[in-house]
């Protein structure tokens, strides 16, 4: 071979643009095998996988959107509920306040009524006592006067001082009597 190169015989024989039919067929068949294996068996799988993934991603996005809408809806609902609860609480508070005012008012009026009753009964008793005292006095005033006169006569009117003493004692006795009477 080496001597051929040196002489240049082989290179002159060799045609760079030669198309040997055998190798043409080999090249074509090799390509067709690759083409059919890839085209029939492998590429459909991968294009399907790519499509599936695209769909999965799209589905995922859709799901995420739905979840977002759902959570927004729930948040609005919660807000509503909170507002409602607040309103309710305010209502309850107002009612309680009203009730409290009512109770206080009632208690006060009851107390006032009781006080008035106590006052009235006390006054009535006083009136009664007073009347009783008056009638007692009226009933006894004659006997007392007779008693007093008897004593004055009995003591002999020697001087004014003695008479004055008798009168004073009498009055103090009366007072003591009326005091014991009042207690009773």
């Amino acid at each position, binding site marked *: 071979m080496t001597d051929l190169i040196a002489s240049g015989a082989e290179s002159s024989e060799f045609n760079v643009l030669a198309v040997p039919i055998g190798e043409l067929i080999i090249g074509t068949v*090799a390509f067709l095998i690759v*083409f059919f294996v890839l085209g029939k068996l492998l590429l459909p799988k991968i294009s399907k*996988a790519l499509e599936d993934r695209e769909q999965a991603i799209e589905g995922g996005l859709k799901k995420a959107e739905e979840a977002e809408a759902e959570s927004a809806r729930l948040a609005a609902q919660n807000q509503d509920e909170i507002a409602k609860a607040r309103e309710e609480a305010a209502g309850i508070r107002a009612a309680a306040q009203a009730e409290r005012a009512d109770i206080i008012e009632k208690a006060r009026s009851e107390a006032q009524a009781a006080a008035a009753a106590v006052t009235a009964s006390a006054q009535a008793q006083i009136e009664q006592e007073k009347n009783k005292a008056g009638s007692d006095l009226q009933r006894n005033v004659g006997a007392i006067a007779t008693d007093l006169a008897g004593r004055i006569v009995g003591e002999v009117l020697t001087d004014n001082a003695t008479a004055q003493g008798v009168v004073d004692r009498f009055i103090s006795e009366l007072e003591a009597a009326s005091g014991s009477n009042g207690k009773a």
Partner: protein
Amino acid sequence: MADVVDVVGSGGFDCHLMSGCGFPAPGTEIFEFAPLVEFSLFGITFGINKPVILIILVSAFIIFIFTVAFAKPRLVPGKWQSMGELSYLFVRDQISRETIGKAGDKYMAFLFSLFFFVFFLNFMGIFPGAQFAPTALFVYPVALAMMVWLVYMFIGMRNQGPLKFFTNMMFPPGVPKAVLVILAPIEFLSNVLVRPFTLAVRLMANMFAGHLLITVFIVATIYLFSPSVIGMLGSVASGIMTLIMTGFEFMIEALQAYIFTLLTASYIAGSLSNEH
């Protein structure tokens, strides 16, 4: 058959600068591979040589990695599936939908296979151990371009009608009659004959040139490796250039696979719409 080793070996590994040995420039012989096995079927000779073996290995590899990536797709992809999906989405969004639109999804299997078939075959050009892109041999780009041609011609005739496809192609609306006389044959030639030819040649020429260039720099690295200042400088520079060119080749390989597929997609797009 000739490998880099053979080229360098033609002058022997002793062939260096200043040793009275001329630079053993690599020629087209580095694109010739002797068959390891040869057999005949229906009068056609099939020679199993290095490029054929590479094609078989690359085909098996493509099927293997995409089986690993796509056989059991999960909703949450693993490492391999992620990479597979990334490559699928690249072809779909950057090539198919970019040129054809959503209608291109129907041709994804063809475009995807085409892209990775061409890409991995090209990549063999810098793959350690392989060091040769089968696409640098005209026959393989021709095989692919023929298939592309069949596909876009078929799609065109099916979508626009067998005759309408050609009249739409040759007589674009709004062109003066006088111009049509020139335009019609040009359009026919460019769409029906030139397209597959340029498609094949573009790919083959890029891979061919890349392989030749890298070989030249490797041979130069070895040839210039000699006990002299100029020789050593040249050898090191060539070695560095080999590395740079290898990186550059990778870019070209990916780019050519992309261009091949993109043009295929644009031809399909042209066949789908009656406007052109």
